[in-house]
């Protein structure tokens, strides 16, 4: 059976060059980077080389890069660490309703500490409005976090404008760029951000490594305590192999971006058109153009997402859904609900995220195989029955 991996938004395979580089570290450069002897020094050097690569990829200075254990950690250090370090200046924070849980839950925890958070709404395509953002600003606003692009529907946010306003008002601005690095240009100077989070496993690097860009001069309160590693913000012996892996991964990701993103965009468009054209009662979620080049998010009405994923999986297609059951919770995607979708439409959403391995044949395969699956699930669905009989959908 053909296997078609269309879940690159969840994680990517580790590229060959990355695996090779990491293997070499594991077998040859095992020293502790904090050791001053000849086993430790090469490890330190590898870390600093990787730091340069990450800095270069996003237009930063190596001194501004802190390696973390994940994108989640980078988000948390920026948001919680940044808010706590600046709470004397004010207690108001701004973010959006469509952030990843790594951001959203960090803000929720800050609310418990006495911070006030404004959650910006989004329009039907998942985009925040700069105007609403401006209206939300207060004299005591100290930190703003708006993701660069959304992980579910791929909407790219106006971070440059928001960043510019924050800079003018000396408000810290964080952006979660976990989904954009290697997909669209990411430059900390253009975004005008003080913090930026990225993650290795979304760009063909290893899992368990992320990086936080922290602009020179910005201070945060550490969340973990211990050794002096990573400017005391991420104490603990460094994950040298994964740091090296991230360096190699980001270097490749940025280099290949122009060609690869154009290639994926074409495939994505064909996929979207193919599915919308062949299956009735489907709709694209998120914007048609201002979206991540590799993201297709489609609602297939009257069937439920997990059932769809499982059925597709049995035909070799790996996809994800913004639906309830995948996460073990009963709520449909907070992103889709924030965009104004009904529960029915949100539950039936299907996210297909393309990547290196995706070919024209993969797209054809999905277009061909999806329809019979949908037909089968709809034949089983009491909601589809209602729809066909013209009865109200509750």
């Amino acid at each position, binding site marked *: 059976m053909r296997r078609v991996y269309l879940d690159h938004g969840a994680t990517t395979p580790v590229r060959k060059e990355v695996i090779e580089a990491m293997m070499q570290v594991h077998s040859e450069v095992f020293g502790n980077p904090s050791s001053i002897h000849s086993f430790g020094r090469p490890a330190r050097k590898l870390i600093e080389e990787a730091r340069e690569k990450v800095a270069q990829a996003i237009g930063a200075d190596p001194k501004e890069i802190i390696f973390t254990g994940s994108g989640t950690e980078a988000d948390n250090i920026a948001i919680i660490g940044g808010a706590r370090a600046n709470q004397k200046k004010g207690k108001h924070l701004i973010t959006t309703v469509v952030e990843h849980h790594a951001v959203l839950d960090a803000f929720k925890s800050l609310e418990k500490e006495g911070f006030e958070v404004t959650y910006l709404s989004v329009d039907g395509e998942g985009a925040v409005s700069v105007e609403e953002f401006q209206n939300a600003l207060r004299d005591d606003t100290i930190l703003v976090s708006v993701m660069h692009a959304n992980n579910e529907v791929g909407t790219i946010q106006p971070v440059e404008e928001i960043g510019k306003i924050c800079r003018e008002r000396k408000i810290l601005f964080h952006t979660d760029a976990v989904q954009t690095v290697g997909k669209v240009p990411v430059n900390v100077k253009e975004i005008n951000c003080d913090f930026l989070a990225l993650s290795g496993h979304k760009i063909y690097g290893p899992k368990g490594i992320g990086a936080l860009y922290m602009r020179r001069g910005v201070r945060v309160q550490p969340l973990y305590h211990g050794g002096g590693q990573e400017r005391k913000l991420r104490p603990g012996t460094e994950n040298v192999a994964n740091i090296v892996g991230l360096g190699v991964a980001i270097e490749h990701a940025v280099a290949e971006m122009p060609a690869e993103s154009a290639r994926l965009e074409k495939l994505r468009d064909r996929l979207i058109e193919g599915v919308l054209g062949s299956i009735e009662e489907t709709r694209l979620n998120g914007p048609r153009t201002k979206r991540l080049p590799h993201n297709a998010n489609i609602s297939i009405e009257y069937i439920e997402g997990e059932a769809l994923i499982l059925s597709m999986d049995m035909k070799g297609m790996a996809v994800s859904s913004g639906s309830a059951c995948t996460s073990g919770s*009963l709520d449909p995607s907070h992103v889709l609900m924030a965009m104004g979708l009904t529960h029915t439409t949100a539950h039936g959403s299907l996210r297909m995220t393309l990547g290196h391995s995706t070919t024209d044949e993969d797209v054809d395969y999905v277009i061909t195989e999806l329809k019979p699956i949908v037909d089968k699930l709809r034949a089983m669905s009491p909601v589809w029955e209602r729809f066909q009989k013209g009865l109200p959908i509750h």
Partner: protein
Amino acid sequence: MYTDKVLDHFTNPRNVGEIEDASGVGEVGNMKCGDIMKMYLKINDETNVIEDVTFKTFGCGAAIATSSMSTEMIKGKSIDEALNLTNRAIADALDGLPPVKMHCSVLAEEALKAALLDYQKKSGKNLGLNEDDFEDWDEE
């Protein structure tokens, strides 16, 4: 995540469909939770045997599998036997469900009881079912 039995019932669900002249029909769940189950029963009024049973389900893999399994478990059984079917028995028959999916088995039990309640109303027989019981159903 899912046992082979769950996957089997999900992939090849038994007794999918509607029964035109059903003796009782029950529908439970709601769109918010993302699970709706509808069950159709054909009951022999003389023998009280469930001669046919079908379902339609909007929901996740576990929702579909528990619907399918519960129809298999009551087909050909008496109303009394059906009334004694618990959600745990359905889950056990599927070799278990992930904890977050146990509510699906509850829903399947509920759908069956709702269909029997409908039959109680239509047939005038007293099966001991009470409309109110469906409000505070024990979702473990």
